């Protein structure tokens, strides 16, 4: 067991080491983040001014679709799986993941899925152009031929996520060091355990819904075609039965990351650990009974509309508990503001703003005005960019010294933060205004009243994009050299990962540690 990594390409191809696989996941997700970002910039460039100037409407729709798919399935989810791979074994005192060979598989099928998805851009009829929510019949009867490749790509991504989740659950349940009881686990492990259960429950549903599409398109069934006794609205119900838990899949691990970082830099234990666990579990539970709030305008009986409205509003309670806990953790601490902390504080503030707009969207009568407008776009980008992206960035800065043994450049990190923070708000805050004023989402051209704010948003988007280059540069520079990090890296951080040397040896906790 004491040997180090193999050399050359085969190290990465055949590795079963959780750290190697975590690294590959993180690099892959960053590549996808850049690709999805380029698609986003195409969208923002087209929307810089009214009129059609850069791309045709059909290609614009391909961009919005691919941006959504790549960011959700290619950037955010693999990034969190990468963090889980790196950190969970180290946090619970395990030598590796429970199923290391499957771990290798779950990663290596991903590049194929995304190669296939990206290849659709070059196919006749173009890439999928029906939005990342791919509502039937636009995605079935009226879809470009490339939809079949899209379906297979989704199947592969789903298989990867499911294998990853089984691995994470098995690891957490069976591989904890003696004395590491469930209620002693770091919150990142807890949130990932719950996320993995969500994934196990809903990824098969996604696989099911795309399979039904495939059957409708190629085998003459009519699940979603009214002519054969099906119903396009059924598609939306099944999709959002997957889709709503999915958005929590993208945010729960972020809660875990922030719950690790804030106590470290506030130099004070996390407030309300147990309530954090219960809040996470309640959010996960509620996520299964709120899906139809994405469909308030689809035409539902009044009772259904009311049920989904009330259930959705309830989510504000556990989410509120989390925010209050973080704020109370900071209260009376002794705070410093290193880059991970800056990103985490921005997370709390901006995620809360996204939560507020979410609460507004939950109110069904008001949602009739917000639905499918830029207000919704603003809402979910406020939840996902500061939520998922900022927390992943914070996690990278926080644990990078542990991973590669060198400190990152703090000035560059802070510059990255401020540029990203400014870019993000410039991009997405004006979207609230244009949405309320009546701009629908997914349109390649808009009327003149929306021109000013769209121009600001486009400028912000390019700023945000440029900031990520700085991030890439900083990470590469840190890997190559820099000030040596201590084992603890920060001031008295909590967690087993800080008890091993920096950089973390290739094999850690071959002998389980003592957990007090």
């Amino acid at each position, binding site marked *: 067991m004491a040997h180090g990594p193999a050399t050359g390409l085969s190290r990465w191809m055949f590795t079963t080491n959780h750290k190697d696989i975590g690294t590959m996941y993180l690099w892959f997700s960053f590549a996808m983040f850049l690709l999805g970002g380029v698609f986003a910039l195409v969208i923002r460039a087209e929307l810089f001014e009214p009129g059609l100037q850069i791309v045709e409407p059909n290609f614009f729709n391909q961009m919005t679709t691919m941006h959504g798919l790549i960011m959700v399935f290619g950037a955010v989810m693999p990034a969190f799986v990468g963090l889980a791979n790196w950190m969970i074994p180290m946090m619970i005192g395990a030598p590796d993941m*429970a*199923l290391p060979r499957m771990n290798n598989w779950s990663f290596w099928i991903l590049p194929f899925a995304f190669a296939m998805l990206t290849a659709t851009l070059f196919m006749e009829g173009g890439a999928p152009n029906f939005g990342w929510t791919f509502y039937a019949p636009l995605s079935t009867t009226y879809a470009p031929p490339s939809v079949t490749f899209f379906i297979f790509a989704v199947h592969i991504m789903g298989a990867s996520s*499911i294998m990853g*989740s*089984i691995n994470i*659950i*098995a690891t957490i*349940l*069976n*591989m904890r060091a003696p004395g590491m009881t469930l209620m002693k686990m770091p919150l990142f492990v807890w949130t990932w355990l719950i996320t993995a259960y969500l994934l*196990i*429950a*809903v*990824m*098969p*549903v996604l*696989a*099911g*819904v795309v*399979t*039904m599409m495939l059957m409708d398109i190629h085998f*003459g069934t009519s*699940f979603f075609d*009214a*002519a*054969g*006794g*099906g*119903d396009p*609205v*059924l598609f939306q*119900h*099944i999709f959002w*039965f*997957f889709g709503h838990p999915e958005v929590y899949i993208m945010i729960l691990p972020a809660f875990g990351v922030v719950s690790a970082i804030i106590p470290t830099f506030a130099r004070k234990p996390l407030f309300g650990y147990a309530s954090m666990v219960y809040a996470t579990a309640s959010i996960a539970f509620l996520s299964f009974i709120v899906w139809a709030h994405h469909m308030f305008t689809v*035409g*539902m*009986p*009044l*009772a*259904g509309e009311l049920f989904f409205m009330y259930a959705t509003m309830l989510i504000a309670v556990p989410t509120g508990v989390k925010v209050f806990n973080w704020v109370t953790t900071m209260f009376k601490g002794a705070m410093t503001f290193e880059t991970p902390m800056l990103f985490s504080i921005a997370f709390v503030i901006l995620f809360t703003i996204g939560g507020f707009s979410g609460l507004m969207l939950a109110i069904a009568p008001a949602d009739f005005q917000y639905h499918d407008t830029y207000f919704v776009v603003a809402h979910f980008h406020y939840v996902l960019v500061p939520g998922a992206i900022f927390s992943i960035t914070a996690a990278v800065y926080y644990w990078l010294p542990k991973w590669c043994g060198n400190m990152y450049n703090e000035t560059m990190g802070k510059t990255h933060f401020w540029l990203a923070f400014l870019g993000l708000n410039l991009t997405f805050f004006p979207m609230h205004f244009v949405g309320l004023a009546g701009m629908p989402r997914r349109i390649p051209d808009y009327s003149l009243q929306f021109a000013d704010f769209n121009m600001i948003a486009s400028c912000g988007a390019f700023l945000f994009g440029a900031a990520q280059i700085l991030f890439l540069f900083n990470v590469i520079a840190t890997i190559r050299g820099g000030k040596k990090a201590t084992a603890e890296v920060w001031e008295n951080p909590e967690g087993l990962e800080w008890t091993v040397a920096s950089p973390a040896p290739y094999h850690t906790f071959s002998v389980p540690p003592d957990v007090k």
Partner: protein
Amino acid sequence: MKNLLPIDPTTRVSLKLAGVVVGMFAFAVWVMPPLYDLFCEVTGLNGKTGGQYEAVEVKVDTSRTVTVQFVVTKNESMPWEFKPKVGSIKVHPGEEVEMSYMARNLTGTGMVAQAIPSVVPFKAAQYFHKTECFCFNQQPLQGGDSADLPLRFIVDQDVPKQVHTITLSYTLFDVTEQKRDLLAGLAGAAAGP
């Protein structure tokens, strides 16, 4: 049974989870669609009405009248003429009413149509019973032919008091591709004695 399960806890957990995965997939594909249909029928979601109705002990409530409106849509601008004989009728709850639609295939080739009913308000859908409807079957028509398509329905005597107007919509879909065999039957009948 117990020793049939693998001893290794990791394998055991993984197998259980794989079982959940298979179960959820089956749930999505085989349980959710029928469950949704049932749900629609009970709540009137999407204005779906049930299949053929067997009248049981209907009492005509002459104290009330409900206006039933008929609207039609031709999906993908299907080149048929398709319209109700009357735009709307007033009926008493409980009374069985007969009316019909005119359909004409404007093209030169045989086509098969399927009409999909939908009723608003949704809360009235479960009280709208069809005892006979052309929408229960596909309708084949040779090029240029026309047909009278009958519909018999009962508005249930228990329809909520707030419901004064019920709108019945039919959307006509072209299912010639899928149901070409029906045309063959039609041709055979025409060639017969």
